[in-house]
């Protein structure tokens, strides 16, 4: 635990209504999530003096930027001593890690951190149309992909998955077991988008998107917002919840920020940030009770499993063969809420939300039965990655 993590804690969380094409704006959803998180912590908006969000006002597909930091500050008249947003950061939780540093260093006391999306509603007219009309020429990192028909992260990440499968023999069936496990968990989550059971036949026969990814390897665009309150530890006395400690965090990126030049195509930035994180904590992978691991595409979760050290490099297929490793009542339950694959693309924040809800034992029908103390949270894919260990001790 470093200087920052010793002082910064999570004091409350909240989520808005979540669904497909629910017809509400991203700002509306962000405000609802914020209200719920502030109340959950036992705070009022008068206590909030910091606001942080991802990604901020960037050009993107419709609904990707549900609300900016200023949208929420201004709507509630929040008097901030510190605020930030950013997209050039360590995964979608990067600015939340900045918020931890802000409260630790005294720039703020209680920071409202949020991520809001309304992609399902905003893109009802069709994703392909959104892609091909958003800019006339491909620029920035898109410059070297779009001209070759490599339009989607399904293509870029699909190539990583293909190379890993080639190197280590990972199969679609093994990945499918993880996808099906998330769907099984989602059946217990009333807020999940997809809750009907899925069979291996369903998984394998789904429409192919970009081999090896079929439809069920890709997460589902959703409408919804998540808010998380990061507080200075000494300011949480007497609040509604026992604070969740940020035991350790990782934000490292050791290679260029590209989708095609990483030296080892069977690893990702997830491996950099977890390596840096483990250097700052007395805990080890064997101490982790459960994990919430990014699954914008199914393969990304397998990368996080290896990056955190829950399976040896090259051996995630064998890890997945034994469901006892990761099912809800197993040794290391993974994505008890159903992940983004089944519970919707709340884009990173949903994983930290679920980790906190489980630690506070507020997860209802999907509550992990065993005692819980330490959760691993991995967020992002490709060159985007940030991770945390969060802990609730007796």
């Amino acid at each position: 635990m470093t200087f920052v993590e010793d002082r910064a804690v999570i004091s409350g969380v909240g989520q808005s209504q979540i669904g497909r094409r629910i017809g509400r704006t991203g700002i509306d959803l962000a405000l609802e999530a914020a209200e719920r998180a502030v109340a959950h912590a036992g705070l009022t908006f008068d206590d909030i003096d910091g606001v942080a969000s991802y990604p901020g006002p960037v050009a993107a597909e419709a609904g990707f930027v549900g609300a900016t930091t200023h949208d929420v500050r201004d709507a509630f008249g929040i008097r901030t001593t510190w605020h930030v947003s950013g997209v050039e950061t360590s995964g979608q939780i990067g600015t939340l890690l900045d918020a931890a540093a802000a409260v630790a260093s005294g720039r703020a006391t209680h920071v409202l951190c949020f991520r809001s999306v309304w992609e399902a509603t905003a893109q009802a007219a069709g994703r392909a149309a959104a892609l091909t009309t958003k800019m006339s020429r491909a620029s920035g990192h898109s410059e070297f992909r779009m001209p070759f028909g490599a339009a989607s992260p399904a293509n870029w990440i699909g190539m990583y998955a293909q190379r890993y499968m080639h190197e280590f023999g990972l199969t679609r069936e093994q990945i499918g077991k993880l996808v099906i496990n998330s769907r099984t968990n989602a059946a217990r989550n009333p807020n999940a988008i997809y809750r009907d059971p899925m069979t291996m036949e369903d998984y394998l026969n789904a429409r192919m998107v970009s081999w090896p990814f079929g439809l069920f390897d890709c997460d589902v665009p959703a409408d919804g917002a998540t808010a998380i309150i990061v507080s200075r530890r000494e300011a949480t006395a007497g609040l509604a919840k026992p604070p969740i400690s940020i035991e350790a965090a990782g934000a490292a990126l050791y290679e260029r920020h590209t989708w095609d030049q990483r030296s080892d195509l069977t690893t990702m930035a997830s491996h950099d940030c977890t390596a840096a994180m483990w250097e700052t904590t007395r805990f080890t992978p064997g101490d982790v009770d459960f994990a919430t691991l990014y699954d914008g595409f199914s393969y990304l979760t397998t990368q996080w499993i290896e990056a955190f050290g829950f399976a040896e490099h090259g051996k995630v297929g064998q890890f997945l063969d034994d469901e006892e490793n990761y099912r809800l009542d197993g040794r290391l339950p993974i994505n008890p809420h159903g992940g983004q694959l089944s519970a919707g693309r709340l884009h990173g924040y949903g994983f930290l939300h679920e980790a906190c809800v489980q630690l506070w034992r507020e997860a209802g029908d999907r509550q992990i039965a065993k005692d819980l103390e330490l959760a691993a949270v991995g967020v992002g894919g490709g060159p985007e990655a940030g991770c945390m260990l969060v802990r609730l001790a007796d």
Partner: protein
Amino acid sequence: MAQAEGRMLPEVTPDSRAFWTGGFDGELRINRCQACRQWIHPPVGACWKCRSRDVAPEVASGRGTVAAYTINHHPWFPAFPPPYVVALVELEEQPGLRLTTCLVDVDIDAVEVGMPVEVVFDIQDDVALPFFKAVAA
């Protein structure tokens, strides 16, 4: 027309002009560090390995192997009717020097890691796109 025939063309920058226009002369031009001889892609005016600013485009062989691929089945662009193969091609000049590209004139079922390929330029408007096709090993 910037968005020619249902595809998205690249925005040509001072850094990338050599890469996108070399094909008009039949040349695949890749940035190379003049100090340590490291090849660099995407093109930028510094060497990420030795940090020299003495970087200039040089002509690469245009030959490489498939490092990874995906068979795309979704119709993202009218000019790319599915299925088609998006690949990372590792150029023979240097391990890890890769282009994201699209394979053309290829038997989709025969694509595999390590497959030898060579560049074939597709001229669109003001750019020559470096696609790759299979060659005999």
